[in-house]
């Protein structure tokens, strides 16, 4: 227990901030993922074969390649890519991207591929009559989507999105290879300096379990809220 004390003598406060970092990265990654899903879901549902191909390419590649490999691509390739873009605009200095941004982008793209699949499935399982009825009532396209399709879709998507959240939360542990101080990295540092890896890694496992448990409880509440009337 001494090892977990807050302040300079223990690792309690460090691990607490690391946990907050994990949560922050997970939420950012999830939002980045939603952004990608917003782009790629319409592509996958499009009538045009070429657009379908682009959407399918994204989800197939990202879901078929290990997360760690994607993270390495971003970690080693990220600043190079930004510097290349900057050089077009005449900026040649070295640019280093923050580990938080690299990490949440990499995990975000991965979680986006899963979210895309979830949204696609949810939209496809909405009865065709709903789209037609909305059209017949003369509701404009914007209203059709936000007032009729989206609320129904969310109810179907939330259970699967909670899976995506769990995957995203666990994937953030891989960002520790880039040096971002989240739960895994902090445990690695603590384990190294106290020579007590068993304790710190087990404690990290407990922290992850706690996070997944709490988020499950919260998502269940959300699920009940969106299932009103069913």
């Amino acid at each position, binding site marked *: 227990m001494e090892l977990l004390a807050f302040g300079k003598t223990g690792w309690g406060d460090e691990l607490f901030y690391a946990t907050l970092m994990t949560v922050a990265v997970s939420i950012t990654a999830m939002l980045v993922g939603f952004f990608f899903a917003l782009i790629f879901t319409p592509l996958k549902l499009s009538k045009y074969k070429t657009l379908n191909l682009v959407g399918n390419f994204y989800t*197939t*590649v990202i*879901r*078929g*390649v*290990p*997360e*760690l*490999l994607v993270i*390495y*691509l971003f970690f*080693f*390739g990220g600043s*190079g890519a930004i510097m290349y873009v900057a050089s077009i605009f005449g900026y040649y200095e070295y640019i280093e991207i923050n580990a938080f941004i690299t990490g949440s982008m990499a995990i975000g793209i991965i979680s986006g591929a899963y979210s895309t699949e979830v949204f696609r499935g949810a939209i496809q399982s909405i009865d065709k009559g709903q789209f037609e009825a909305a059209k017949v009532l003369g509701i404009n396209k914007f209203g059709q989507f936000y007032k009729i399709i989206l609320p129904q879709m969310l109810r179907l998507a939330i259970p699967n999105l909670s899976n995506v959240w*769990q995957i995203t939360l*666990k*994937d953030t*542990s*891989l960002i*520790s*290879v880039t040096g971002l101080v989240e739960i*895994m990295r902090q*445990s*690695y540092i603590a*384990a190294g300096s106290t*020579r*007590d*890896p*068993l304790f710190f*890694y*087990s404690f*990290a*496992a407990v922290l*992850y*379990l706690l996070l*997944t*448990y709490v988020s499950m409880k919260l998502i269940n509440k959300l699920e009940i809220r969106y299932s009103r009337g069913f």
Partner: protein
Amino acid sequence: MDFDLMITSFPKLLGATVVTLKLLSASLFFGLFIGLFFAILRLNKNVFINKFAYSYSYIFRGTPLLVQIFIIYFGLGQIEYLRSTFLWVILKEPYWCAIIAFTLNTGAYTSEILRSAFQTIKPGIIEAGKSLGISNKIIFYKIQIPIAIRQSLPAYGNEIILMMKGTSLASTVTLMDLTGVAKYIISTTFKPIEVFIVAGGIYLFMTFIIHNVIKYLEKKYSFQQ
């Protein structure tokens, strides 16, 4: 684009794929037994046995695979007692540590897949077996298991693909699997995109093969011919 690097790194990465496949097949093989064992425990009516199996799968599904590998590889070595037993021969090798972690991880997911497969078997089928005078043991081995295998094929196919991606974490405990070698080449040449295309291509090819084999098996064992 550095095509020369892509061509020269291809044989190296292909050699590392063998390590990935070894890790994958070993952990799937052992994981299937562990999964079946815990699935049976989950179906047990005894509350304690049931809870035990549930907490096993809950813990391994609720924590990242990376933590599990680190606990086994870095953590277990810390226990003095273990160092003096024959287990140390296994636990000092990163290769076996990775396999143990992967096995326990995939075992947890497999147990959930098999449990839900067993639960979806209609009671009528088991009753039909009983009324024909077939013994409980034979009902289990000849009726329940084949149906459960068929039911769980699609989910298990996903699990195989997830596990294949999971083996990339072996590179964090010094193993030179496909991702490990890819990272090594990236960090020595600083050409991440080229290496990513080749290594990612190999992974995608494996995903493609697994996907199609499972699809074939699903068709072969489907009830509606």
